[in-house]
């Protein structure tokens, strides 16, 4: 198949992939998921991929994703040695979208924590799968979520039982190996943290080769009353990869959801967090760090909905772009009429490291309540001349001084990382990047 040109071709292509996929399942995976899928492919056919006319995709040109006839990645693939080094248990590992029992540790039916693949979880907790899978992912308006749902089969399932406090971080690893060109995978994550439970989750995306592939990811995270979920994403896709991730979060009263994303890889990536604060006193924190090089494009998009009173949201997005890289941040805060005493803070700092690098930043506040505090601020700047002079006057050469200041800019996101190993790993990654 050559490049996809029209919307009609787009639809036909994914419909053909869908039929191929359905036949590969041999009626497996249950009726409930089947009807979710069928509805989703229909919806995708109607929506098509978003264009830059859509306000939510204004600064991201999806032409390369839209025109490529991506194929489903079927069959087993080998994981290059060393790929999983340093990633501790408990963990669930997926290779090209498919669960790998070999590399994973699962717990099912455990009193406090269940971690399993989605098909496995469907056996132990059919009622939870039925009630929650696909419930908060917005298939109606989000084409990528619809497409992911159309191909929904495998994925990660995390269930933290009422009152349980899970000390060890749960690791989710999505590996994309070097295989045929132009493969597509649809990783899916469902996290349910019941009332008063606590869990830390580290979600990793690792590419091991140089081929073009596309990961279209959907996550759903449901927090019961007073639950605490600390969610990290480390995106280290291959340099020619496309990565579009939609994370749909639903929060009950008093719950605290933190999302911290480190976006290192991919030629084009979209990191989207859509959270609904649906109960009184909830708190949502969303932090991201993006470091773009070469011709990388990264789009960070948040939609935080305050739907109940006395909720807080804090956003910190830091973008550093070098070479001809492009960074986008658009953050929407919606405050519903009855969400009084809302406190929403959004900060976006951008650092331009070269003349050809660019950023677009767009805050969007939609406030329908009157007793709220919403602040947003965006800065776009270059390396501070004053700081540069200070370091150089101490004998540090110009390049290294620039590196130190770039590191310093990024370090604010590191400070909030609550898992020591992750903070150290990201810190080393930054030091390596900036060679000091």
């Amino acid at each position, binding site marked *: 198949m050559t490049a996809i040109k029209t919307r009609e071709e787009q639809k036909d292509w994914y419909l053909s992939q869908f039929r191929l996929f359905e036949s590969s399942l041999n009626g497996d995976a249950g009726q409930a998921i089947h009807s979710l899928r069928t509805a989703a492919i229909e919806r995708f056919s109607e929506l098509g991929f978003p264009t830059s006319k859509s306000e939510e995709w204004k600064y991201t040109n999806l032409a390369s994703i839209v025109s490529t006839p991506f194929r489903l990645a079927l069959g087993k693939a080998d994981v290059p040695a060393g790929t999983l080094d340093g990633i501790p248990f408990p963990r669930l590992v997926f290779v090209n979208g498919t669960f790998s029992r070999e590399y994973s540790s699962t717990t099912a039916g455990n009193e406090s924590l269940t971690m399993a693949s989605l098909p496995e979880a469907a056996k132990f907790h059919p009622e939870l799968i039925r009630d929650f899978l696909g419930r908060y992912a917005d298939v109606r308006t989000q084409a990528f979520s619809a497409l992911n749902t159309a191909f929904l089969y495998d994925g990660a399932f995390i269930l933290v039982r009422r009152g349980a406090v899970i000390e060890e971080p749960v690791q989710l690893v999505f590996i994309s190996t070097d295989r045929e060109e132009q493969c597509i995978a649809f990783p899916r994550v469902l996290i349910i943290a019941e009332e008063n439970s606590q869990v830390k989750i580290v979600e990793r995306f690792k590419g091991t080769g140089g081929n073009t592939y596309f990961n279209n990811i959907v996550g759903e995270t449901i927090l019961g009353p007073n639950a605490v979920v600390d969610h990290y994403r480390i995106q280290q896709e291959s340099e020619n990869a496309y990565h579009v991730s939609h994370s749909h979060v639903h929060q009950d009263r008093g719950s605290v959801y933190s999302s911290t994303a480190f976006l290192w890889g991919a030629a084009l990536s979209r990191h989207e967090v859509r959270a609904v604060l649906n109960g009184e006193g909830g708190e949502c924190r969303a932090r991201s760090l993006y470091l773009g090089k070469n011709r990388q494009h990264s789009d960070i998009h948040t939609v935080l909905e305050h739907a109940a009173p006395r909720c807080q949201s804090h956003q910190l997005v830091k973008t550093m772009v070098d070479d001809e890289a492009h960074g986008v941040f658009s953050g929407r805060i919606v405050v519903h009429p009855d969400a009084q005493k809302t406190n929403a803070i959004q900060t976006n700092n951008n650092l331009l490291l070269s003349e050809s690098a660019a950023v677009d930043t767009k805050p969007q506040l939609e406030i329908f309540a009157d007793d709220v505090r919403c602040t947003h601020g965006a800065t776009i700047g270059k390396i*501070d*001349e*004053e*700081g540069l*002079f*200070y*370091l*150089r*006057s*101490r*004998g*540090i*050469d*110009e390049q*290294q*001084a620039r590196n*130190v*200041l770039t*590191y*310093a800019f*990024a*370090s*604010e996101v*590191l*400070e909030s990382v609550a898992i020591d190993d992750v903070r150290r790993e990201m810190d080393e990654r930054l030091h390596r990047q900036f060679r*000091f």
Partner: protein
Amino acid sequence: MLEVRNLHAGIEGTEILKGINLSVKAGEVHAIMGPNGSGKSTLSQILAGRKTYTVTEGEILYEGENLLNMSPEERAHRGIFLAFQYPVEIPGVSNMYFLKMALNSIRKAQGMEELDAMDFLTLVKDKISLVNMDEALLRRPVNAGFSGGEKKRNEIFQMAILEPRLAILDETDSGLDIDALRIVAEGVNTLRSEDNAIILVTHYQRLLNYIVPDYVHVLMNGAIVKSGGRELALELEEKGYDWLKEEAQPAPAV
């Protein structure tokens, strides 16, 4: 050591320094005094290599070489140190790490072996007592959240570690209480030697009670209008700067 000859410099077309002449020899301490806006900080920053200012005329020789051709780091490698009036905060980078990087950059440039972590720590412990600085500040990010006094002490501490040949202190005394001032002065006096020179840029003469200068220069409206010994500072303390104003008129051509 340092020869400043007829230095004219400014920023965006505005001339700030209007013909400075200054000669500093090894072993000497020079105080440069003057009212706000006289060009004191501009001179300090130009000596350290700040490119914000454009030199339009004149020259600066440092140990016989053209200083204006050197980058800020090269000047540091050759022993020039500026204690900043407003030290810069660098979040995320510990004071210790920063200093080790600075010292080793200088040592490397001077053809000396870089210090390893152990030797560096020994050096740090030795010097930190000199400025009576809390050791906890070593692990904190550079100047981030430091009080004004802590920042100034940190500058003197850096100076003690880097052991410059020519130290320029840009209003290090401003905003310091008397105890901190004494500590800073002790730090400077310890550095004082036959081989080194110090330029103290200050607004008040109080610091000069603790660091006795060999020469005092009064900088007004971009030019040195009067030079003398220590007694000149005392005279300024008593009379202020106004009586020198007539002398600040364009100097007759030499």
